């Protein structure tokens, strides 16, 4: 069950800088671990994370193996207008997850 937890204020004033917190369930297998038989455990990580605001990219991150499991990423954006923030994670083995949150901007 790929589950994400997004924290965005439901309302904001126009021009206000808001903080966005995101947390997604993912094992982030680094690709550097070995089983007790010495076999390398294949990498399985989230490699990109984007946020678009009414279709415009406002944040993009490339993630590497050093990001801890269940990636937690916080960033900021200016509340420009009411609308939808879409969060997308993609990664190894075709991993893809999307969440949307609406925001009211006065």
């Amino acid at each position, binding site marked *: 069950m790929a*589950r994400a*937890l997004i924290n965005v204020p439901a309302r904001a004033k126009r021009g206000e800088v808001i903080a966005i917190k995101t947390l997604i369930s993912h094992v982030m297998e680094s690709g550097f671990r070995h089983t007790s038989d010495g076999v390398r455990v294949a990498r399985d990580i989230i490699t990109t994370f984007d946020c678009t605001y009414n279709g415009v990219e406002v944040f993009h991150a490339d993630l590497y193996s050093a990001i801890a*499991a*269940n990636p937690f990423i916080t960033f900021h954006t200016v509340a420009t207008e009411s609308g939808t923030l879409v969060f997308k994670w993609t990664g190894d083995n075709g991993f893809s997850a999307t969440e949307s949150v609406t925001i009211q901007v006065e």
Partner: protein
Amino acid sequence: MTRSIARGLCAAAAVALILSCPIRSGDAGNIPLDQRRSSYELMSPPTRAMQDDDTANPGTLWVLDGEALWQRESGAAGQACAGCHGDAAQSMKGVAARYPAFDASSGRPIDLEQRIVDCRVERQRAPAPARESKELLALTAFVARQSRGMAIEDVAGKDERLRSFLESGRAAFEQRQGQLNLSCANCHDDNWGRSLAGNAVPQGHPTGYPIYRLEWQGMGSLQRRLRNCMIGMRAETYAYGSPEYVDLQLYLAWRARGMPVEAPGVRP
């Protein structure tokens, strides 16, 4: 002295103890009641902040999964947990604070995870979720979360039927074991607060379970943590679900009676 002989002697001692005196009141193992501290207090501020903030606590992901499972119709009976138990915030309030509890059908205590497995199998007629599976951890986390802030109940002290199991658990806690010949009490009663290789030794109270453990980078039950400890002592572990663990969990809950539930906890 081999382990089995040691355990035999311990069992004999436990029986003698039961027959000779009641549970010592006002005695939380060997730590005075007012000196008991949750492991939370030994954690660094960033780790504490991770536990305190539901929007940043990775355990919340399991609680949310558990909430979804609670609503989902499952098994041959086509029944959701909500179908019988309704709103968990009401029906499950206080439940985690009184487990392990006596189970009449088996005549012994069971932990919360076993209670959930039994419900899944017997009431929902669904396959038994495995210990440490995402499903069981999610449901346990969700149920335990409903007791957050509530005091752990003195279940074993008040229920005569649990007396012998409590004493088994206490004996297990105080018995030296493994290649390192250490008992739980050696570290968690006698040396809590001191450092072991850069990590602080906690008193070992089960207030946060199931926990998101940074070492595991995932969620786990108290039994997983107990196994982890036993491996650290180079002792052979019991299988998941073993009565030995549940007896020990019962003793740990009694030892922590009155302390608030912190689930879902974050621990190093």
